């Protein structure tokens, strides 16, 4: 997978616009949560090849599973543009729940990093994740309000559609790969 593809896929799966609607307002918790998510996702990518080996799945086949997850996740974002607020741990614990999990470490992000790991593209995946999570951090600069929320919801829908497209592209790639 190319860096550009991974970047689009991970940004779509992270969906900064949609996530912003339910992010805690404490910026410190968001930054810490993004770092935790990056470390975990990087770790997942690093062991991706070994995990797929253990599951007896070739990376080419696993792409199909990732494609299914991305398409479903994208459809959810398209239909439910405003996610329900997640329960929060107190204080900086919010970095762990809900920021790192479940907001940033989405099923799509985990599948994509596993796929990239299986393809030995760990560095590319980590690089793309840095950009995707940085975009999430940037959205915290947006002041919430009715107008901003409506725009964020529209952006979330757009990224949901992009995630579906990424899923389809990945499925096609899985069919074409040997």
């Amino acid at each position, binding site marked *: 997978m190319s860096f550009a593809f991974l970047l689009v896929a991970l940004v779509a799966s992270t969906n900064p616009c949609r996530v912003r609607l339910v992010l805690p307002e404490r910026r410190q918790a968001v930054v810490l949560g993004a770092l935790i998510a990056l470390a975990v996702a990087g770790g997942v990518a690093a062991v991706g090849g070994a995990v797929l080996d253990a599951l007896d799945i070739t990376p080419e086949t696993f792409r199909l599973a990732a494609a299914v997850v991305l398409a479903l996740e994208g459809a959810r974002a398209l239909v439910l543009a405003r996610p329900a607020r997640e329960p929060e741990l107190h204080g900086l614990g919010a970095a762990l729940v809900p920021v790192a999990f479940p907001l940033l470490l989405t*099923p799509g992000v985990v599948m994509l990093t596993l796929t990239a790991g299986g393809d030995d593209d760990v560095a590319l995946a980590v690089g793309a994740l840095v950009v995707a999570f940085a975009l999430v951090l940037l959205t915290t600069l947006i002041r919430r309000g009715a107008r901003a929320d409506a725009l964020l919801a529209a952006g979330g829908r757009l990224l949901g559609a992009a995630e579906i497209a990424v899923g389809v592209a990945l499925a096609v790639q*899985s069919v074409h*790969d*040997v």
Partner: protein
Amino acid sequence: MIYIAVLALGALGLRVMVVPAEVCPAVTPANARGAIAEASGWLERGVRPGGLYTYGYNRKDDAVSQDYNITRHAGVMFGLYQLAEETGDEKALAAAEHGLMFVHANLLRNGGWTAFAEPGQDARLGASGLLAIALVQRRFATGDESEDDLIRGLAHFLAAQQQADGSVLGRWSRETERAVPDEYAKFGTGQALWTFALLDKLVPGEGWGQPARRLARYVATRRDDVEGYVLTFPDHWSAYALAELGPDGLGEPEIAYARELAGILGLNSRLESQSGQGGLNRVFRGEPASGAGLGTVTEGLAALWRLSVADPRLADLTDNLSARLRCTAGRAVERQIDPFEAENAPRPLLARGAWFTEDGYTQMDHQRHPLSGLLATLEVLDAESAR
């Protein structure tokens, strides 16, 4: 908790429905040779009067099929000649030569061409194409040129079926004495392509390169659209042909097509490796491939592996092609009925060396395709161990 439970269920669903384990038993030169010997034994024991071979057998009903198919007859000859050429197996050669009697009794001559067709039947592209391929293989195995005129006659039939756009029509009607318009042969097109490519090597200077190149371009660029395939048609015969044409005979469209073909054969290999004869894999992946299915995928992957080794434009595919080939060949070896299993069948000699479908049926091409596929796999195993 609910969130985590949903994720866990989702992961389980993915595992069961989308990515069950790909099971790839090991294939070694020894077990591949053993499987080849057993498969050829089944075909050789099938020699029947009149130049025929045993067509099929159902072990559940203990019934020998009375059907026959002349294209598959030519396929059996092809596989046995291949084995004779590769290993010098005299029994295989004798069994292949036995099939010539039926061939010479079922030739249709018209103008400058000859087709392999039973009396009263229309001439079909596949039967003549595969017979031509088998006879070229015979030439390689024996050096005997006595069938060269028949090879040329068959190739002229294929050429007569070729249209201006390079495609080849699948049937010639005895009634109208013309090629039937808009009717194509599923495998005949690839067989015609390989025939032209083989003849261009066997008898250079006779002009077979041009129809080969025209047909190759059609197959690479238009066949799937014209003949109605949504995905690239997994055509192992075209894979053989591409390997035969080699780097010098392939333009960029053909190379792009070779990639697509490798992709679809690889997908078939991966999906097949996830199938099982029972349990959830049976539910979500369907019946495991027949012997013919396993064999055709193996033949196609091996041919494209040879091409990828010869052509730097496809070199990036070599390792994956090898992995898929080993997997499917390993599954073929594992699923063949060995002599001990055969003892439980009503007629052990019709079960031994065969690949049966779930409903207990096998037919000549279920043995022939794996035979050819495993022969080609041996070449890959030998080449890789020599690296």
